[in-house]
Each structure stands twice: as C-alpha cells, then as structure tokens.
C-alpha cells in the first residue's frame, strides 16, 4: 500500500541524494529493479555496484545517478523509512506504485506528483482518506501542499 504524507514532515529524509550517497548498499544497484529504473530514468546501464555507464557522461560513479533514481532505491530498500519523494520527477511515479504493490511504504510529497494513471490506490495520512483514482487523489492533495 502507498501511504502519502503531504507537506512538511519532520520524520522524512529531505535531502535524499546526500542520504543515499552515505547509506546505499552495493547490492541495491545490481538487482533487477535498480537496473530497470536506471535504464528508464538515467538512460544508463549498471556496470557494477559502484559504476553506471551513461550515454552522455560516460562511466560515472553511483553517486552521480539522478536524484529521483536515488530516492526510488531508498524507498525500495528502506521501506520502514520516510523519504521526500518530491525529489522524484513524474517519470518516477510508476516505480513508486510498483514498489507499493508488494510493500507497505510511506512517502512524503511536497508537491502533487502526477501518477500518470487514472486508477491507483493510496492512503493519504494527513486526513486518513483512502483514494482509488487520480481525481480524488488530486482533490485531497491540493488541500495540503
């Protein structure tokens, strides 16, 4: 289930890029999910746990992957923590929903993310409302950001 806290959230990690750089585990980079996300978001290939091959920048260290990708890997691998998912562009939204299909996660949004789907389920913790479509999600979200 996808749980969302809109607006300020003192329990959330705000600067996910810095947190990722100092906490990621090597194996996060080499699993199927990471490879798929890095290919889709960064347009890059995972070389190994410490390096990614970018068509623009060449071989880059893992710390240089996109901020949104870092946040997705944190959400996937540390599901008990809350991360600022406003560091994710709308192109990350489908992967957040994918993680939430099999895991209970809570994200902090400081903007209204466009999930690009008319139907999806989310629990908005600010007002304890469950939504199952984009319109209801939007009408609730704009109250809190």
């Amino acid at each position, binding site marked *: 289930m996808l749980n969302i806290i809109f607006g300020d959230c003192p329990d959330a990690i705000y600067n996910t890029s810095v947190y990722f750089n100092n906490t990621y585990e090597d194996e996060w980079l080499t699993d199927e999910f990471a490879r798929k996300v890095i290919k889709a978001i960064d347009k890059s290939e995972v070389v190994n746990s410490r390096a990614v091959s970018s068509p*623009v920048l060449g071989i880059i260290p893992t710390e240089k992957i*996109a901020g949104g990708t870092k946040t997705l890997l944190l959400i996937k691998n540390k599901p008990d923590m809350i991360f600022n998912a406003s560091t994710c*562009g709308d192109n990350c939204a489908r992967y957040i929903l994918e993680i939430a299909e099999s895991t209970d996660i809570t994200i902090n949004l400081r903007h209204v993310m466009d999930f690009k789907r008319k139907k999806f389920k989310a629990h908005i913790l600010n007002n304890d409302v469950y939504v199952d479509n984009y319109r209801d999600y939007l009408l609730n979200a*704009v109250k809190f950001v």
Partner: protein
Amino acid sequence: MTGKYSIIVRNNKIQFTIEIERNITIIQGESGSGKTTLVDLIAMYSRYGKSSGVTVNSKVNVTVCNTDMWDAFIEKTHNSIIFIDEGNDFVQSAEFAKAVKASDCYFVIVTRENLDQLPYSVKSILKLRKTASRSKITFNRTYPVYENLKKTAFSERSLILTEDKGSGNEMFTKIAADYNCKCISADGKSNIKAVMSEHLDEHMIIVADGSAFGADMADVYKLVCQNEEKLFLYLPESFEWLILSSDIVRINGLEEILNAPWEYIDSSEYISWERYFTSLLETSTKGTPLQYSKSRLANAYLSDENVRKIVDTIINYE
C-alpha cells in the same frame, strides 16, 4: 539587477543553455533531465574557474549557493545569477524570501516544491530538454513548463474567478455583467485551488497575476487538466499590466517598457514584475481621473470604451 541573460554552460560532454529574464527562475522537470549536472558544472566553474575544464558564457557572474551559511552568501554576492540545487530546504523559508527581496542578484532554484513565500512568474518555471547530440556533446536547453494555455471567450455560461476583491475584481465584475455571467473572488490566490475544487464541472475562467502565480501554478494547472473543456486560465502579468497594455493610460516610453520589461525592472527594487507595473500605473495616473489604486478602481476605468479595450487585450493575449 536588470536584464535578460542567456547562459551557456558546457564541458566536453554536455552543454546547457539557460534563458533567464526575471529575478526568480524555477527549474523543474523529470528525473534524469540533467538539473543537478548543470548545477554541479556551475559549482565547479565557480570554485576552480577555467582550470575546472568547464566553460560558462554569461554577461554576469554565475555562482552556486550550496552552503549552510546561505544568508551570508547571498548578502555578500552582488549582480550575479545564483543557482540553488534541489535538497536545500531553506528555499521554503520566509528568511530566504526576505534575502531574495533584499538582493540585487537573480536566483535560479531547482525544486518541484511550491515556494509560497516567493512571488515568481508562471513564465519563469522552466524545464530542461535535450535538443541534439553531435560531436560527442549532448545539447540541452530550458523551455517553459507552461505555454500555449488554452483560451476561451467570455459567455453567459462563464464563471469568472479572480484572485482578490479590489480593482481587478471590479473590472471583471463589470465584464461579467456585460456578458451576463458571474464573477466571484477567491479572496486570496491561495484559496483559488479550494474554490476551483468546488466548481470543477462548471465553465470557469480563472484570472490571476501570472507574474506572481508561480507557486500556485502546478496545482491549479493539474485541476484545469481535470476538465480542459471547461476550465481555463487567464494569466496576464498582472491586472495593472492589463490596463497598461490596453491603451487606456498614456505614458512616455510605455511601449518600450512593455516590449522588454526586463530592461526596466530592477530586481533589487521590485521583487516581481507585478509590483513594478503597479508602481508605474499608480505614479503615472496620480491626480488624474484615472488615478489607480489596488483597492478601488476609479470610475473612469469602467467606461464602456475602456472595458472594451481591456476585453480586446484579453482576447488578443498570447
């Protein structure tokens, strides 16, 4: 600082072109579009100069604020363009807004958050897009996130929603009466979302000051997208800009100002273009029948001829 700037930042693999014409610019967009790479390159150039291997072509100094001492950094930096990357939560604070207001610099902020404390323009919300790849270099440039907003004509079924009571609302109430429709005020731009949420299925024209509506735009635009056949945004720079653009008030050099406001609006004096146009209109009409006040519109503006001129400007607005 005044002026419009085209900044080119490059190394031997990637190039960014950024077009800036206002004191506050926001860069948003999808993950992986190069926002952090851009700021990193400028930071390297800022620290190491030419020996960084980064080239920055700009008429003014370009730098990055990535320190906890951001307030001191901003205070000691002058006539520069300051970039701030995502992850710096101080950009949300009232203290930061105060520092921006007091500064003579331009600011380029990477964030998807709504910065409610800052009056930035809808037109200065940009995204990066790859334009080409050649000679082993990938070229990227900024584009406005919001452009070519759909237009509609006033009609009997329209509901016009204005930001505030006051002069703008008085004018649009008169226009609404002429078109047999209704005009209501949101009583503050932060209430627009709530009012829209209650009227999503009505034919509504939302009127707001585009030059200070940036923080509300993302949410309001998403609401508009829920019913694009019925919900429309009309976002002139400001109501005062609308009057100045409608050939109602005669001011020497006005056409030049309206064609290139960035040449005339000093960011250290006016935090937004809206404030400048208000000041220009107030000063220019003082002691005349068209004396302008934000709170109450002089009757002369509501003559049939002047209302027609305003409507013509709205119809022809791009």
